[in-house]
């Protein structure tokens, strides 16, 4: 008896310790990023490091005046939203087909989906850019979001595939017997069940598009995304601008994830906390 209490305690300790570790893992760097983004250049170079923000806005104001920042931010959001829509519109039907139908070449199809991630972008960027210039897709948010959709599609398909597989076929069949056609059954029975999962794949698509640099840097020129626009200017910039720039790149993505977080948690069964 005492033995199992002790082991229960140690499991509980391990559980809490891992939660603390995971939180520190994620929040630690974000906190340091925020502190340094809000510190003056002198403070940043000091040793030991300052752990309390002094709310010096110099570095952030620099970026507020950086030519083209707002346009780049808008472009980034446009491209990410397009990517989200495309990858769900294309990915969800593909996931549905994989879960519900048996067709020739199904296994091959699943492998091919993953293959789109097997080629590094720098390799594909040159022929893509040539094609885009020739077709007029070059330097548009639409064109770039097509490329990002290709990157996000495998995730969208595989996530929705497992979602559809998790919904019993009988539910759908019951709806048919009650007068729904295939589309109505999907709309009123299946969709509400899988909506959280769709949100999750939307977040994936958004973040993949938001973080992508190489294709954005090659395929857009005047209409750059924020990542392409800033990231290349940051790796050689002085420390205080690196922190401020990193902060600016991270915040919109965090805001987005926070905005949709309850749908994400719902997928994992902790609904709507």
């Amino acid at each position, binding site marked *: 008896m005492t033995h199992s209490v002790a082991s229960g305690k140690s499991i509980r300790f391990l559980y809490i310790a891992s939660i603390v570790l995971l939180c520190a893992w994620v929040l630690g760097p974000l906190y340091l990023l925020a502190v340094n983004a809000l510190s003056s*250049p*002198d403070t940043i*170079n000091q*040793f030991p490091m300052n752990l309390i923000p002094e709310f010096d806005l110099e570095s952030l104001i*620099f*970026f507020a*005046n*950086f*030519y083209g920042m707002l*346009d780049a931010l*808008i*472009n980034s959001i*446009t491209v990410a939203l*397009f990517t989200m829509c495309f990858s769900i519109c294309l990915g969800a039907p593909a996931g549905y087909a994989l879960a519900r139908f048996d067709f020739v070449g199904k296994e091959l199809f699943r492998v091919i989906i993953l293959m789109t991630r097997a080629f590094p972008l*720098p390799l594909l*960027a*040159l022929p893509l*850019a*040539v094609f885009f*210039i*020739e*077709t*007029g*897709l*070059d*330097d*548009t*948010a*639409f*064109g770039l979001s097509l490329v990002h959709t290709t990157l996000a599609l495998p995730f969208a398909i595989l996530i929705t595939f497992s979602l559809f597989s998790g919904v019993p076929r009988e539910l759908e069949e019951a709806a048919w017997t009650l007068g729904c056609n295939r589309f109505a059954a999907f709309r009123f029975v299946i969709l509400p069940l899988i909506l959280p999962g769709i949100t999750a794949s939307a977040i994936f698509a958004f973040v993949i598009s938001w973080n992508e640099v*190489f294709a954005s*840097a*090659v395929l857009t*020129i*005047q*209409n*750059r995304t924020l990542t*392409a626009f*800033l990231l*290349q*200017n*940051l*790796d*050689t*910039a*002085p*420390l205080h*601008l690196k922190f401020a*720039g990193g902060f600016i790149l991270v915040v919109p993505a965090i805001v987005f994830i926070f905005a949709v977080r309850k749908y994400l948690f719902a997928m994992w069964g902790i609904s709507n906390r």
Partner: protein
Amino acid sequence: MKIKHSVIGLTVGCAISLSVNAEVLFWSTQAKPAQETQAMREQVLSSSATKVSYQANDGGPWLTRLQAELKAGSGEIGVLGALHGDFAAMNPDDLVDLDSLGLGAASATFNDLAKLGTSSAQYIPWMQASYVMAANKKALKYLPEGADVDSLTYDQLIAWASNVQKETGSAKFGFPAGPKGLKHRFFQGYLYPSYTDGVVRTFASDKAVKAWEKFRELWAVTNPASTNYSFLQEQLLSEEVWIAFDHTSRLANAFNERPNDFVAFPAPAGPEGRGFMPVIAGIAIPRTAPNMNEAKNVVKHMLDPKTQLATLRATNFFPVVDVDLPSDLPPAVQAAGGAIAKMSGSPDANPGLLPAGLGSKGGDFNRIFVDSFERIVLANQDIRAVLNDQKPKLQAIMNETGAPCWAPDAPSNGACPVE
């Protein structure tokens, strides 16, 4: 054609901000740090009669985009800005001949390099820099007896770094041996010319063995974290390092942020003189430039003495044309300018030019020196064995490209031999 039009229609239909631009796109690998990009836009290009959009990129996207436009036969890039080595790796036919502009640097050597082996100018030298030493003033009191910071020898530098280590308890000489550090330029332009009076011919000579032995001595008193350093200004500001070697633009922030705390001074001298390497950036026009005349106007604007001074303030790269430097320049420019002037004007100066004629093999050439450094200094392998091992690889690069020797190597007929 129909598909093409419908694609364009779709694109426009998506209501995306398709900006109509009469601007010239300046596609550059230089002035990449955010504050330099900003200064290029606000201080250098705003005075141009032609509207310019300045975009600074990493080498990868820069080249990929350029290649795509050349392949597609049309594009948006009007003017290219890059280092000599970037242009040397290109096909000269892809760059417009610029002789008709009648522009050029004050240095005949630079103008010659800009021909890229053809008979006419493929790019116009735009700005120049070099590598210098910098030190925290706190380190100066540990200088070995009789040593003058403006005319150090390698032995004195080693003694100095060793004194600092003894007094402070930590190694405070910093060397840019990180992944993005420019260590290969130190070997090609500083160590080899100073100790062997050559780079290619003398690569595996007995004098080269001496040079590497000396560098090992220096490494023994170098901060071991140097294999992470790429921009020594950061370590100078954090005082992790007191004495440093790096590119002038990679030291600039230290001087601009705390001008009274640091000094810049010439690189040390060896038995064959004071080796140092100039760095040249150039501007060119790709054959696909959408508006050739306006692109040429931008090139002209960049070579104007006033613009050259503005560029100096913005990027810490020095003018290539003759200009009188005003006295109110930023601290980094004054410090670096003084050090470069002392270095090139010193009686034992022995300039080592940038590798020339290697075309796309420039990266492989650098690799030879980086590999030698890693094997000799980091892995502590036998110097003679490593040099003998690398020698045929170097010779293969020279033979393949047919590149003749450059200073300080004695001139050659045909490919430069590794002796």
